[in-house]
């Protein structure tokens, strides 16, 4: 307060109002935090617009284009959903870990391992080729989640036992996961020398809306697959765990003050391992649904950095599992239709600005800004 006042009195020019910034002494209203998320997105879009304009483009046309190619029709909406499904699941994975202030940067690697775990069922093969579809789906879910959980368990265990920084270990394990998959697609399951496995047989594919096209014409050609259902169920369960269950209470307590948790008799080590495993399992489920719902084979580059985008999504959703679903759809649109504008530049830039704006906006959660007119003083 004194700072700004002093500056203003020093310069002879006076603004017609004064700005005061002081720490909040009460909780901000409930709508305040989501509003900041919205403002962060709008702010990022404006910066994106500025860059497009500087590059000689027409920002509003570009944005209209993005909107049309992501939400404009049932068909593109369905494609947006397809992009959003893995984001939802990795976003949930990150939200869970971040609630406990466990910085799981390894959703990417857990995603790859989940994809591997699912593919293994077909390619090893674990099940005979003509096994029923439901059996394939169930075993692939279990296997994908197990492998994701394993990839979460390792850094979780290292953290609990030896206090290894999970940011470093999860990040490094991403590279191991990608190379692990590469080994299998280059050497073991390579089809005719290409860096990909054979196409899965149809009974190992997740059902899609278009499968119902014959009976309900409306669904014809819609690529949205069953992964959407997984993501929504997972979000609801996770929300329930965090908000209603005793385990969720422990997670929130540890996240806010580990020493208080210890004093209340909550085992931090056990929860570090468990949360990392569930987080990994969710990311693994994302990998599984992407492989069996979209790609239908194991190959390289199955993720354009979903695991990292999940971090942004988790923050933008304020670690709320239900909000993760909505935010993921927005990001799905940005990734899908953003390519219409530019394959990588602008959409990635917008994501980056969103996260910076979000982190900066925490300042307003902690501080109150009041603007008063000079006249009133």
């Amino acid at each position: 307060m004194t700072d700004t006042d002093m500056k203003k009195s020093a310069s002879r020019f006076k603004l017609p109002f004064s700005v005061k910034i002081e720490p909040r002494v009460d909780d901000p209203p409930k709508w305040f935090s989501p509003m900041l998320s919205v403002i962060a997105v709008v702010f990022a879009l404006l910066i994106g617009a500025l860059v497009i304009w500087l590059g000689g483009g027409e920002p509003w046309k570009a944005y209209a284009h993005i909107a049309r190619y992501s939400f404009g029709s049932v068909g593109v909406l369905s494609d947006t959903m397809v992009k959003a499904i893995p984001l939802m699941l990795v976003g949930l994975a990150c939200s869970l870990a971040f609630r406990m202030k466990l910085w799981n940067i390894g959703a990417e690697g857990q995603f790859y391992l989940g994809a591997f775990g699912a593919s293994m069922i077909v390619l090893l093969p674990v099940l005979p080729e003509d096994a029923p579809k439901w059996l394939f789906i169930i075993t692939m879910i279990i296997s994908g989640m197990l492998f994701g959980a394993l990839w979460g368990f390792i850094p979780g265990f290292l953290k609990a036992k030896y206090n290894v920084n999970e940011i470093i270990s999860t990040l490094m394990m991403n590279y191991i996961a990608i190379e692990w998959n590469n080994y299998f697609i280059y050497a073991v399951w390579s089809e005719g020398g290409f860096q990909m496995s054979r196409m899965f047989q149809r009974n190992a594919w997740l059902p899609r809306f278009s499968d119902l096209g014959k009976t309900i014409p409306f669904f014809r050609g819609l690529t949205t697959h069953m992964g959407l259902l997984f993501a929504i169920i997972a979000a609801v369960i996770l929300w329930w765990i965090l908000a209603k269950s005793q385990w969720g209470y422990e997670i929130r307590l540890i996240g806010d003050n580990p020493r208080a948790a210890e004093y209340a008799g909550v085992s931090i080590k056990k929860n570090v391992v468990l949360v990392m495993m569930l987080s990994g399992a969710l990311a693994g489920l994302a990998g599984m649904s992407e492989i069996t719902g979209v790609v239908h084979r194991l190959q390289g580059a199955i993720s354009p950095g979903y695991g990292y985008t999940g971090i942004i999504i988790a923050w933008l959703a304020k670690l709320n599992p239900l909000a993760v679903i909505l935010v993921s759809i927005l990001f799905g649109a940005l990734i899908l239709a953003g390519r219409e504008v530019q394959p990588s530049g602008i959409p990635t830039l917008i994501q980056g600005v969103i996260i910076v704006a979000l982190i900066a906006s925490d300042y307003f959660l902690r501080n109150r800004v009041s603007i008063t007119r000079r006249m009133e003083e």
Partner: protein
Amino acid sequence: MNQEKLSTETEIVVRMSGVSKRFPGVLANDQVDFDLRKGEVHALLGENGAGKSTLMNVLAGMYRADGGTITVHDQLVDFGSPREAIEAGIGMVHQHFMLVPSQSVTENILLGLDEPRFRMHLPQYNRKIEQMAEQYGLHVDPAARIWQLTVGEQQRVEILKMLYRGADVLIMDEPTAVLAPSEIDELFNTLRSMTAQGKSIVFISHKLHEVMDISDRVTVLQKGAVTSSGVPTADVTRADLARMMVGREVVFRIDKKDVEIGDVVLSVEGLKADNEKGLPALRGVDLNVHAGEIVGLAGVAGNGQSELSETLAGLREALDGKVMVHGEDVTNKSVKSGIRQGISLVPADRTLVGTAPNLSVTDNVIMKNYDQSPIGHGWMVNSTEAGNYATELKDDYDIMVPTIDTSVRLLSGGNLQKVILAREISSDPKLMIAVQPTRGLDVGAIEGVQKLLLEQRESGAAILLISEELEELLSLSDRIYVIYEGEIMGEVLDGDIDKIGQMMTGTRLEQIDTQGDA
């Protein structure tokens, strides 16, 4: 012992007269007079919070005095920063070292100086520092990195840092608190060699035997005021100092109902434990607490009190000895099983340990019983029950908070303590360990907390009250143990403040008794 020297060299280096320093709600220094002669070790003695460190922080330029004058070499000074103080030759070695662990000794000493300007010329400075270390007997390798050094060596680096900046007055803030016994001897040798070379030293401490050992004169502070100014150490006894330090003011007695003392609830035998640094903090503690009594544990901070409370609650590993609650061995049982046994702990640190700041009042009061019926329900937390429970506690304990959904970080200290006490008391504990339950609270809140503790006593709980506030202990407790360096010095039944004072500074009860006979 230095009488001769004192009579010949009585040049006064520093003179503080009538210095006052006020913090919100506390008068930390009240018209304090203090002077320091060239070549002496002047001890500044007092309990925690007596204002020793504040006074010296004023001298070292960390705080500005609200009143009074300071002269250094007969020049009136008013330091605005530690830098100005060091330019006048006054340097302070703080209790917590301010060193960069990954840098070498020399680099740490040169940090923040104008020379060297661009190239470090490390070998040259290494030699310079080595010579200086040699001169004062501060043995430390200038090229070693700080993290490789022992605590004692790090302290020497801090001293060298000050000497290098030209300090001829050295303020040591409780320098022995972090040291092992052998390192203390070495430190004392260093201090003697420094005074022999004309440096003057202020030695802040609350340990009587060290003060008797090292100092030439001693000034005693009590509650911010001087009770004895600059007496030659040779002229006083330990008992005198203890009395001047603890004081003899009329103690405000609280109405205590007579409660029938019940069975032994807590009995501790030969308990040993280490602190965070792996040094022994408890060296065989024996004590017991019966149902219906408040047993005080007196002692200067850092003598094992917090370690004891943590070990009893299961938060710290007991290395040896036994903890029994109601005749059942609970040594090294989990925190949760302790909670189930009815052990409740009011931790010393309300925000760091006692509460989760960003969670609601509800989430904070259910911390100990979220998994027990009726709040715990299967896998779930029954939020209606939790809400009712929180509302009930809010009303019963008069917690001033807009709603039970408010984050506790927004609560005042007194209200936060009520949240913790409400939680701990409503679990109907058999044993309650309360560590500094009134620290930092205002008078009204203190009374409220004390009343709650007495009510617990009346309802038959066993209470171990750990406090540094002697008055509080005297007015609340039925008996008082005194702890010193991880050992119980003795037990006082009649609240004899002289005895407590002496035990707090390391004299055993038996020794006091024999002194009395002689």
